[in-house]
């Protein structure tokens, strides 16, 4: 049974539809990510799950039970805020024991539970500190401990890495991902950072303009995007206009076998990821117009024979490539993905 589900949920603010007919089922112990650009409705979706916003249409369920009209204080959700929102009038330990105290957990038990969590998160030495004196990373852990202390139905994370520096983000991403896996707590992780979502979540829901564009595992979303928006939002994508006829994909300058049977017949768009373009061999020639050195690799933009742009990933071992050079490229049928939806 799904632990938490949104069934055809719509949320309107006056004339604006923030969340439009969205259905998401989050399995027990699953880490579900919601990604999308600013204003796509992902935070509103999280606030609907928490109960801070009332649903205009549809149902929110925990363990099959309708909680649509239950206020947040009675929903038993753990929430880690973007700003962490730690109570500055309490110590770290008091922050963590506050939730259990509100749930009438006995003094001894809530203290033990809090100490256990602080130990798990490796911040037991901070127990008596004031949250104001902690670093961003430490505050995030305290926020997480506070959210977990009430043993929530679902853990909600609202962009918890915003405001941290890049290196710390990378470390915390691994640690948090591991922790969520170990704890097996049902989690909804909202972020605009698709890399974070890809590395930490079991499944990802991509939202745009209030709609749910696609829901799937990170590899499904990356390799088989449902539409051009998803292809463009998750990672870098080359979208090329092609004609498909008799299981043959015609680019105008080369032809390939279609990757499996196709539903589309006629004009279509295919997606090729830059890392799937083989450089240095093949029948197609690309004229390099731009080069961006990115440390681990070089990202290049080239012009295909028909004038369409193609983004490539060049290995540094390729040697000196300069703008104006021509490179031979190839791609396999398995590496192209035909986008069926026009959205």
């Amino acid at each position, binding site marked *: 049974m799904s632990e938490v589900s949104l069934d055809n949920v719509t949320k309107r603010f006056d004339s604006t539809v923030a969340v439009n007919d969205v259905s998401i089922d989050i399995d027990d112990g699953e880490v579900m990510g919601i990604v999308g650009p600013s204003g796509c409705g992902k935070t509103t979706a999280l606030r609907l799950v928490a109960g*801070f916003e009332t649903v205009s249409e549809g149902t929110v369920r925990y363990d099959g039970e309708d909680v649509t009209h239950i206020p947040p204080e009675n929903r038993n959700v753990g929430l880690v805020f973007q700003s962490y929102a730690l109570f500055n009038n309490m110590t770290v330990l008091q922050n963590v024991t*506050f939730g259990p105290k509100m749930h009438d957990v006995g003094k001894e038990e809530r203290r033990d539970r809090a100490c256990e969590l602080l130990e798990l998160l490796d911040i037991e030495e901070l127990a008596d500190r004031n949250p104001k004196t902690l670093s961003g990373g430490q505050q995030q852990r305290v926020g997480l401990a506070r959210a977990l202390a009430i043993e929530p139905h679902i853990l909600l994370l609202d962009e918890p890495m915003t405001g941290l520096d890049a290196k710390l983000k990378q470390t915390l991403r691994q640690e948090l991902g591991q922790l969520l896996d170990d704890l097996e707590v049902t989690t909804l992780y909202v972020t605009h950072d698709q890399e974070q979502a890809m590395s930490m979540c079991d499944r990802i829901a991509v939202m745009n303009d209030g709609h749910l564009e696609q829901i799937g595992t990170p590899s499904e979303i990356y390799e088989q995007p449902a539409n051009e928006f998803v292809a463009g939002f998750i990672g870098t994508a080359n979208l090329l206009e092609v004609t498909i006829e008799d299981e043959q994909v015609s680019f105008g300058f080369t032809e390939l076998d279609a990757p499996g049977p196709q539903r589309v017949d006629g004009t279509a768009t295919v997606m090729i990821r830059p890392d799937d373009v083989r450089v240095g061999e093949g029948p197609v020639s690309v004229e390099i117009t731009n080069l961006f050195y990115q440390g681990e690799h070089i990202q290049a933009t080239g012009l295909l024979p028909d004038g369409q742009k193609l983004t490539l990933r060049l290995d540094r071992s390729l040697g000196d490539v300069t703008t104006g050079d021509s490179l031979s490229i190839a791609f396999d049928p398995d590496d192209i993905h035909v986008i069926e939806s026009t959205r």
Partner: protein
Amino acid sequence: MFDLYRRLSGALGRSSGNDNASGNEARTDGGVVSDRSVPEPGSESDPGPLARVGAAVDRRLGSDFLESSLFWLPPFLLIALFVYGAIIWNLLISLTDYRGFANAPDYGNLDFEMYTRALADPGFIDAAVNTLILLVAFTGATLAVGLLLAILIDRGIRFENAFRTIYLLPMSLSFVVTAQFWLWMYNFNNGIVNLLLGTVGIGPISFLGDQTIVLWAVIFALMWQFSGYAMVVYLAGLRAIPTEHYEAAQVDGASTLKMYWRVIIPQLKGATISAAVVLMVFGMKAFDFLYSLVGGYRPPNGADILATKMVREAYANLNWAYGAAIAIVLFGMALAVIGPYLVYEYRRNNL
């Protein structure tokens, strides 16, 4: 004072240390160049004895001490004379037996007679107790009402600005107006309060005549006037608390009452302290209100406070020395309120 001067000169872009070494360096004080610094070696001009004394003073007390004294010295002297001088003079008078303008005070025989007299005077003890009750009850009730109003307004009600102005308006009235207004409100025969109570079968009550009630009636009127002030201070405090703190308390399972009691109100400590200090000072100055209420130095029985007794003893009874002693007690009470506040602010680096 010197500390203030140092900070001021710091703010004006001048170094407070000896900046002789800086010689002719570019300055950021708008082109004001001191000619009192030690002349460059080999300089032709003779500074003269006055300039040498000036330079010596500057070296000891910081650069431009003499020049800047033009700006700070007059107010310094005026305040020293008319505020602190008057306090010290008042203290001296309280140690004499001075009784009016006929004779000059006799400073040759100073003692604490007026203070021992005060302790033996039931009128003084009553006034002191009333002052304490007024301070505590007025401050406490005003803070509580102000906090309640601030919370209600902060919860996104309609016409918020209009309500805020309405609640704050009484504070802009003078004590004289408020006193006259409440004199009508509390009128035994036709006062609105008694008319309203009459509709539910209570009263009429002699609010200003019954000495067990009158102090509380005065406290209520003062609270009406100043709860708007407390509301504004609290509202500013509430607005500084991020929405996430309310939401975090909610998801943690706190009811609205517990959320305010355990999370929000404790974060208003700073607002409470600053509002309480201002209200207590207002409370001690309630003389104007009581004077206007009866149009004389003798407030209704049961509502005499130290401020009214002090003025009455000095001006009506011509017991100048006794009035001065009461003033010193009142001054001590004000210090007891403001002193800890200044220490608190100093510890928070706000001073």
